[in-house]
């Protein structure tokens, strides 16, 4: 195994991901929204210029957020603040690191800066989270130094089906690793273009070596609990909160459902009188070239 996995630096990066477990990470675009998210019970906020559904609607190139937005959000909350950089854009990542952001999301929601390579995340002190659809994608990002993995889902749709698909896909691929032979593990490593050591590690433990969260289309309390049931260890909610009719109540209800994901009576009790969820669009109706998950 790459000795960097055993380093103190990596340990404290994964450590912060561990601390976010069981929580909800909410997209926010203003300090006011960040305060609402914190009071709703968010475990962290993601500082952005536009939520994914607006990025999708408005089009154009989506980049790292305006630094003043990020700084202002950092100032008003005590929970960790995350921000997104474009895939492969290691300078945006360096700038965010300089701002002492707590976690960077190298995200397919922004327009990729490099169509061949992701950021070499080992080079940074700040931890990274990356999206994935399959076990191979997850393991490649982990091999690049990601301290947390999340599903890609299909961001900005409010349709949870793609996050569900990605969680199931990764789970079943991991489960199969636990029962196949050593010889076959070499085949898996080759197929996924990752080292045999990392494949062996997943085969031994039946789970990823870093926390695995859900993201992309989570829009309701029940969606969040569904993702937790399918093995997600925490939930990212993008457009779902501030595109709902009542973000304060909606945010709180999603947090409650994530905490009490096994207790359906509690989920129901706290899901009354929320007003409407974000409108959303069916993910499968989006043409392939407009899907964010393929990035």
């Amino acid at each position, binding site marked *: 195994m790459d000795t960097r996995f055993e380093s103190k630096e990596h340990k404290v990066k994964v450590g912060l991901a561990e601390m976010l477990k069981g929580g909800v990470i909410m997209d926010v675009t203003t300090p006011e929204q960040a305060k609402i998210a914190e009071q709703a*019970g968010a475990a962290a906020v993601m500082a952005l210029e536009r939520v994914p559904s607006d990025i999708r609607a408005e089009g154009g190139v989506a980049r790292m957020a305006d630094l003043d937005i990020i700084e202002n959000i950092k100032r008003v909350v005590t929970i960790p603040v995350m921000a997104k950089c474009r895939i492969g854009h290691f300078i945006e990542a360096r700038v965010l690191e300089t701002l002492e952001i707590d976690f960077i999301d190298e995200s397919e929601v922004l327009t990729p800066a490099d169509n061949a390579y992701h950021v070499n995340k080992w080079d940074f002190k700040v931890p990274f989270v990356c999206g994935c659809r399959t076990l191979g994608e997850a393991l490649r990002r982990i091999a690049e130094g990601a301290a947390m993995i999340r599903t890609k889902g299909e961001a900005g749709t409010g349709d949870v089906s793609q996050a569900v698909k990605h969680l199931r896909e990764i789970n079943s691929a991991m489960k199969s690793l636990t029962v196949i032979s050593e010889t076959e593990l070499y085949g898996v490593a080759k197929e996924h273009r990752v080292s045999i050591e990392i494949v062996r590690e997943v085969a031994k433990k039946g789970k990823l070596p870093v926390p695995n969260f859900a993201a992309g289309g989570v829009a309701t309390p029940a969606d969040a609990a569904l993702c937790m049931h399918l093995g997600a260890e925490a939930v990212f909610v993008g457009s779902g909160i501030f595109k709902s009719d009542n973000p304060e109540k909606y945010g709180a209800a999603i947090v409650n459902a994530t905490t009490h994901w096994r207790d359906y009576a509690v989920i129901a009790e706290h899901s009354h009188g929320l007003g409407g969820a974000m409108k959303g669009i069916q993910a499968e109706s989006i043409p392939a070239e407009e899907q964010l998950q393929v990035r």
Partner: protein
Amino acid sequence: MNVQDKTVGVLALQGDYGLHEAQIQRLGAQFREVRLPRDFEGLDALVMPGGESTTMNILMDRFGLREPISEFGRTKPIYGTCAGMILLARNIERNQSGVKPFGMIDIDVARNDYGRQIYSFDEELIADFHGEKKAFRASFIRAPRVTRVGNDVRVLATFRESPVLVEQDHILAASFHSELEEDTTLLEYFFRHFLLDTATP
């Protein structure tokens, strides 16, 4: 009474409670996740895990846990790590999100005082368990710093002059995360010193 007969509650509102559960299991005790007041029934001790103290504080109010935890802490042992330490403290400095601490241990803490995530670190430290010295690893992740220690508080370990592991009566608090380790030294101490001692009258 043996450790196998003990049930340790783990506050499971948010955070790395799963890592504490794994350690509790490894030492042979039972655990139960605590999310609602009814979950306190028959518990012998409580662990308050790492995570976000702001989030836990809000959820404790939302689900009616403040009173049961206060009541439990009057007589039963509690171990808090990082966010757990913040909640157990007397006062919180720079408390802009309005976390209401339980005041079960007479210390003041300043949240995130070692800095934001890029300043998080991992160190080998020495604890003095009432004369028995033991080395342990400690990850400090956006950790709280203990800024005042009352007269009745015993300091078991320090890092660069700041207390990082403290106890008073049946309350143990760490500003780091013992649960991130394979090594269970600190939980063993908690069990031996607080959980098993309290069983003998």
